[in-house]
């Protein structure tokens, strides 16, 4: 599944708290989720960081990518 474009609404939703529902056993992704949960950064900044993360690790995170737009 291709990664959603940067302007897709899923990134805003994920940055607003939906990322915590992602099911993953990938260590980096688990740390990212917890870090986003604890971060006080504005939602657009978080959304950009989450997109950059999945763009980088797209090849390893097929199962996670399938969940992104449904969370």
């Amino acid at each position, binding site marked *: 599944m291709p990664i959603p474009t940067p302007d897709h609404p899923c990134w805003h939703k994920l940055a607003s708290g939906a990322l915590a529902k992602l099911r993953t056993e990938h260590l*980096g992704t*688990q740390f990212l989720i917890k870090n986003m949960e604890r971060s006080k950064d504005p939602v657009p900044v978080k959304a950009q960081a989450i997109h950059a993360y999945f763009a*980088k690790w797209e090849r390893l995170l097929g199962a996670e990518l399938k969940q992104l737009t449904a969370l």
Partner: protein
Amino acid sequence: MNQLISLQAAADLILAGRFLAVAGPEAVLDQLPAGRWIGGTIPYFMTEAGGTVVQDERVFVTDLTDVGTLAGIGSFGPDELAQVSGGAPDNGFALVIIPAGGETHRRFAAEAAAFPDAFVKPAVGWISGVHLSDLGRVTPKVYDGSSRTKHEDRAVVAHIGLPADKLVQVDIVNLFQPEDGDVLRFTEASFEVGECEVNGQKRRLSDYVVERGLEHGRQPLVGDFAGARINASLQSVNAQGGTVTLYAPVFPGVEYRFAQPQSDYAASFQAETARQDQSGAIWSCNCILNFLFGELEGKRIGGMSGPITFGEIGYQLLNQTQVIVRLV
């Protein structure tokens, strides 16, 4: 190469231009020539033959020359740690060694997750230490081989770029499972804890630890990081002063439970190693507390060899955990 070798063999590799990660006793590391290497002090290792303590002129060498491109070697003080991940190539990672006990160690532990690019250019590595009989007398060191300098309170970092068809994968083996019982929460990121919340009730952590008989430190606190079990191990308990000192900080916003006891470390590591995908493994380290409590000297645990350290780094500081770096 990922093994203990003689000082002379290590020096020959450096002089041949190989890019090495080196671990060993200070007196041995001091004799290595300048070149493309970073290093840290530690005499404890897990090898194919089992856990061992080096008391001679050998060092543990991981030859990373063929892993990718060495983009640079440098050292960073406590105020410069944002460059650890940030300075790595876009498709790359940072191999980091930090001496135990200093401000650099403390700041990295507390702040690593907030550094730029912390999750897109992972930091992996370890905390250097000393022989346990030298604790309090000798300080851990790290080495920037490019300038042939050693440091007591800076991080040495090798920034490594990978081929376009490779990604770095950071895996951990944590033998500890949390208990089902009490949930502990903390209000600030700290190595030293006074009060905490136990099932929502405020109390001194030291009182709780003493009441439970957990002062021995064999059972770490296990934090739930979105399903990842991340340990913070107990260093000491000051019952009178009401504080507990940890080997890694606890964080607010994370649920912690004490770990269930671990009986057979070697067998548990062997089982985990057999279960995990070890393909493409290039580097590993494991924790001195696992070595001690698991009585791993002379015992084999399978999987990758590597230094036994005063802390492990896989994105952030870890305790009582094996870190395995793979290229996939």
